[in-house]
Structure formats: C-alpha cells, structure tokens
C-alpha cells in the first residue's frame, strides 16, 4: 500500500476506481465488464486507466445487451471468475431482470447450494440535471424483494471502498448502488474506513429525540438536516444503513427504543418502498413504546419530470427532512425560518456540476 500524505484528498469516484484497481491487482480472477468501462470518460471516472493497466482480458467492453451480459456474468461467476459489472444508469439494467432474478439470485439455492455466484453489479442512479422519468429512478426496493441478492447503498466516500471490496469478495450476487451525486464527494484519505461487514449500519450521529434511517445519498441530505436540528436542540440518531439487504434491523430497533420516534428517508417511490419495509418491521417490534406514528419520507408516486424548473419539488432535501421531524415531534415552526435550508439549485450537486449526465 502506498503511504498516504497526511492531508491527501480524494473523492468518491476516485475511491471506487482505486478500489477496483486494487481488486484487479490482488485477485487474478476478478474482471470488470460494462458498456463504457474502457471509454474516455471511464464511467464517471470510476474505471479510468484500468483497461490500459490490466488489458482486455480483465477490463472488458461490452455490447449494449444488459440481459445477456448479466447472464454472461453469472456464467463467469459459476466458472470461478469474480465479475464486476457496471451500468451507467440503473434504468437500463431493467432489461436484465430475468438474468438477475431467475439466474443470479437463485443459482446457488436452486442447484443445491453448491455453486456460488460471486457477481457484483454496480448501478448508478441519476439525480437532477433533467435526468427525468427514465434516468433518475431509485428502484433499490425491487432488489431487496429477491431472496439471494444483497443490496448495498454507500453514502460516504470514506466508506465506499470498504463496501465495494466487501461486495466483490462476497460469494453472492451483490447490487451496489451509487448515486451520481455522491461521486464528487471529497474526503481525506486518512478518514478512510478499512473494513465494513455487509449488513451492518452506521450510527452517523447520536441524539435522544428521534431516529432517522436512510441510505445512499439520502444520508447526505439527512446529515444536513441533523446539523440544522442540532441548532434547535433536537437530537437525532442518524442511522446510515449502508446495506439495505440484509439490513441492520437491530441497530434501528435499539435506537427507536431510545428515541421512541422514527422517520425513514427513502429516495425510492413511496408505494412498495424499502422505507415502508423498515416502518413495518419497526412498528411490529416497537409499537408499544412509540411516541409518534413512524413516518416515511419517500418520492411521490409520480415519474420524475425532466424540467429543471420543477425538480426542486420532486427531490427530498434537508429542508423536507427537517420539516417532517418538526411535524412529527409536534414542534411549531415558521416556514420562513427554514429559508437557509432551501436548495436554490436543486438540480445540481454543486456549482461545478455542468452535466451532461
């Protein structure tokens, strides 16, 4: 390992790339496949230079054939390889549901629990910049419905490397979901977390009044909300699930037993959302001690329109989380007082972002 300069900075996308590079170095059976993995943009920078370093047998450009490529990944995985596949938008991966559900997820169980399928599928979800109805869907709940799959949703650049490494080394098919807006997240390399077991959540902030459960980019918005709420003397247990299948139910139960209030923040559509699963589980486990009805903050059941003129009303941001916490705790507030939380550019992650996707 290279020694890290004390204040060396990196970002989320580079951390993904460097983790992949490290895996390719140490595991000769690992290989990367996907449309664009060798192109000049390198999947938002996450595969840049890997083809040049490892060659065409390890970093493999593919046809635009999501379903077959997933099956080919399964075939490689049951033959001793460790494929890492990537799709630049989750929405395209919908073409691969047969191979994901009927092949990847079931192969181990169905054929007598002998052959494993160590397959990692990176799916990137779009956000803002007019991604619209078919480039911005957060369909992670679908994958949690399928026995045999694991589903990982990293929020932090400090943790994405450990989570990706654990996903790749897992002997099961893992859906690894990256929000496009996490890619630019800066971090100090000294803050990197070395190992995270799949299925373990992280108590990001600790507080006594309410529990917020989130994953992926929603944790970033939740964290902004928690910092604001602190100024109002409202203490939040913020749990970043990191893995939503399996998920760390015990940590959530322990927290709700303490705070007695729960909000789940989910970037997916409300009906059939993963957030509803958490609400259901926790209501069944903690019903007698709950001080308020648990609350779900999820996307409306409406395809996301493209127009950047309206997108601010469609994306859950810190302001919505704060408002819901205040409503749930029955704390009166003046909407104007939240003005500092208003996202004036709700369709971009930061001022440097100029698209195109």
């Amino acid at each position: 390992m290279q020694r890290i300069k004390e204040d060396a900075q990196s970002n989320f996308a580079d951390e993904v790339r460097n983790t992949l590079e490290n895996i390719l170095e140490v595991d000769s059976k690992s290989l990367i496949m996907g449309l664009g993995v060798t192109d000049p943009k390198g999947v938002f920078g996450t595969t840049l230079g890997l083809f040049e370093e490892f060659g065409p047998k390890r970093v493999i450009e593919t046809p635009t054939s999501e379903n077959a490529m997933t099956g080919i990944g399964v075939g490689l995985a049951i033959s001793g390889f460790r494929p890492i596949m990537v799709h630049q938008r989750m929405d395209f991966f919908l073409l691969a549901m047969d191979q994901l559900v009927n092949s990847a997820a079931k192969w181990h169980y169905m054929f007598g629990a002998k052959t494993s399928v160590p397959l990692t599928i990176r799916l990137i979800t779009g956000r803002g910049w007019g991604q619209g109805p078919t480039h911005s869907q957060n369909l992670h709940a679908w994958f949690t419905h399928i026995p045999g799959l694991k589903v990982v949703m990293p929020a932090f650049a400090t943790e994405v490397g450990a989570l990706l490494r654990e996903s790749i080394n897992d002997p099961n098919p893992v859906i690894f979901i990256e929000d496009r807006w996490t890619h630019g997240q800066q971090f100090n390399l000294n803050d990197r977390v070395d190992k995270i077991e799949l299925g373990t959540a992280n108590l990001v902030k600790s507080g006594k009044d309410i529990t917020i459960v989130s994953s992926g980019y929603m944790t970033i918005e939740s964290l902004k909300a928690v910092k604001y709420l602190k100024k109002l003397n409202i203490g939040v247990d913020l749990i970043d699930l990191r893995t939503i299948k399996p998920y760390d139910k015990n940590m959530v139960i322990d927290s709700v037993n303490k705070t007695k209030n729960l909000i789940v923040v989910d970037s997916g559509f409300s009906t059939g959302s993963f957030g509803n699963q958490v609400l259901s589980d926790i209501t069944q486990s903690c019903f007698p001690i709950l001080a308020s009805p648990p609350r779900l903050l999820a996307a409306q059941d409406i395809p996301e329109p493209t127009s950047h003129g309206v997108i601010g009303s469609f994306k859950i941001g810190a302001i919505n989380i704060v408002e819901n916490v205040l409503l749930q705790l029955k704390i009166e507030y003046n909407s104007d007082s939240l003005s500092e939380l208003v996202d004036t550019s709700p369709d971009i992650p930061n001022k440097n972002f100029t698209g195109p996707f």
Partner: protein
Amino acid sequence: MKCSFDTAFNIYKNAFRIRAIEERIALEYPKGEIRCPVHLSVGQEMLSAVYSQIQIVSDTAISTHRSHAHYLGKGGDLYRMIAEIYGKVTGCCRGRGGSMHLVDTLCGFLGSSAIVGNSIPVGVGAAFAHKLNQNGNVTFIFLGDAAIEEGVFYEAANFAVVHKLPVVFMCENNLYSVYTNLQFRQPLERKIVELAISIGTLGKELDYKDPIQMYTDLSILVKEARSGKGPVFIEVPTYRWLEHCGPFDDDALGYRPSGELDNAKQNDPIRILLEQLNDFNMDNLNSELEKFYSNLKIEIEEVFVKVKKDAFPDLSEVMSGVYAEN
C-alpha cells in the same frame, strides 16, 4: 471423423437408454409420486446421444426445461436426476430444482432453466471462462426453436461471435412452443440455422434421419469451436412424441396436423440407427444388444426402487443455503 461401430453402438445405447428412462418416468407419473412439471424427450433423444460421444468431461453444457436427455448425454448421474424429479433430498439439487433444474457439476452439466432462453447467456459466460482459461473446452448450449424468439439469444450469440467463444449452440427444432406451431411464430421460409449464420456463427442443419452422419457433422463443428474458430450453431429437426409437459400422448387435442406424429414415429432415429448398426455386419451385435437391454432394465429398476425409499428434504435443510458462505 468417421463413425466407428463402437461409437455408433454407444450412440445407440445412449439414445435407447434415454428413451427407456423417459418412458419409465411417463409410466410412473400417473401414480402421483412425481409432482412437478416434467417435460419428456421421447422422440428427441438422438442429438443428446450423439453429443455424448463427442463431448469430453471438462466441456460444459447447459440446458432448458426439457433437459433430461441433455443431462444424461453429458454423463449426468441417473439416480440423482430421478431423485430430483421425485423431490427427494438425494436429488441433484437436493429437492430444490425438480425436473426443470438439473445439475451435475462433476460431469460439467452446469444447470438447466425453466425460463425459455434463460440459460443461453449463462452458457456463453461459461464458454468465456473456457476461453479466458485457455483450456480448449467448449460449452454446449441446448435450446429449442422458441428460444430464437427471445431477445437474449441474439444478445448472447452476438457476444459469443464478437469474442469468438467456444460455444456449440444445440438447437432442437421440434416445431412447437407448447401447442403453438412454428408457422405462427416465425416465417417458415427463414431457417433458424441461417439466421444464426447471419449473426456470424458457423452453422449446419443436421439430418436426424441419419444419426451416423449427425455424428460426423457434429464432430467436425465441435472441433471448429474447440480450435478457436468461434461459436457454431447446429439445428436439428426433431419431434416431441408426448405432450409438452406431462407423460401422455396428446394427439387427440388436435393441435398437430393429422399424420404428423405417426410420420415422426415412422422415422424414429433410434430405429434408423439400429438399422445402421446392422449395416456394420458385426457378428455379436444381437448378443451385445441383449446384454445391454437386460442390464439397462436392471439399472433403471434399481434407481426407481431406491429413489422411492429416499427421504424428502427436511425443513431446516430447505430453509438454508439462500446465500453462499465464504
């Protein structure tokens, strides 16, 4: 690639054995102890019998809902297959897969899928592994005429061509997708094998009325795939004698044109191969056949007797193994 008497005799024995096993399953099925969808290969055995004499154990194969013949042709364990069909814990999938999901990794039979076209890309992935490992093995991918109507076939075949993968597509065209004739699903003037060739595979239609020639033709094509020339596609016209799913004759349903089934039976490839065996003029053929028939009868009887006594999986057994452990 001339077919010797020994090879021809082995093909005959394989084909006859597959039919005898399928007919025994059909005989047992109405008793109610086999309780899963079963798609029998009676009438369609010959391609499996021919490939049994061409494949080597380190080759891999993958198949469809109608996989018994393909599994047995690859050398799959008979006892474990029958146990699987009966839902017993001794089955090849420990009772989790049933007739449509057979596996025997010891002989390279990777699995079979109930979803039409589903196993095709998985087989291409296995062939990609052979190529990356430079081991000279090929993957046989069994498919039917209806799989050509699934998009994933084109995606997978395209990838196999682009990467020149050692794939042998084994297309058994039995004219029916369940009860729907090919004429309602594909233009009859377009041959499936020509479609595959236009994608970039090598290809040939085999003559199921000449099993010995089938052996020669398939041997040559498999050698091409093995030597790095890229995927090959073979189409075999064949015919399913029994119902799509289940043990019975279904000619009375009327979906087959009158006389079609009788014609197929009159051109039974197994009978034709027996005539071809006689043409070798081997003195001991009849005595060898008698020996084979009587041993086969014992083999099948023993397997069914044993399987029926086997246990079902217990609940804790089937509740485990959703995820693999490191």
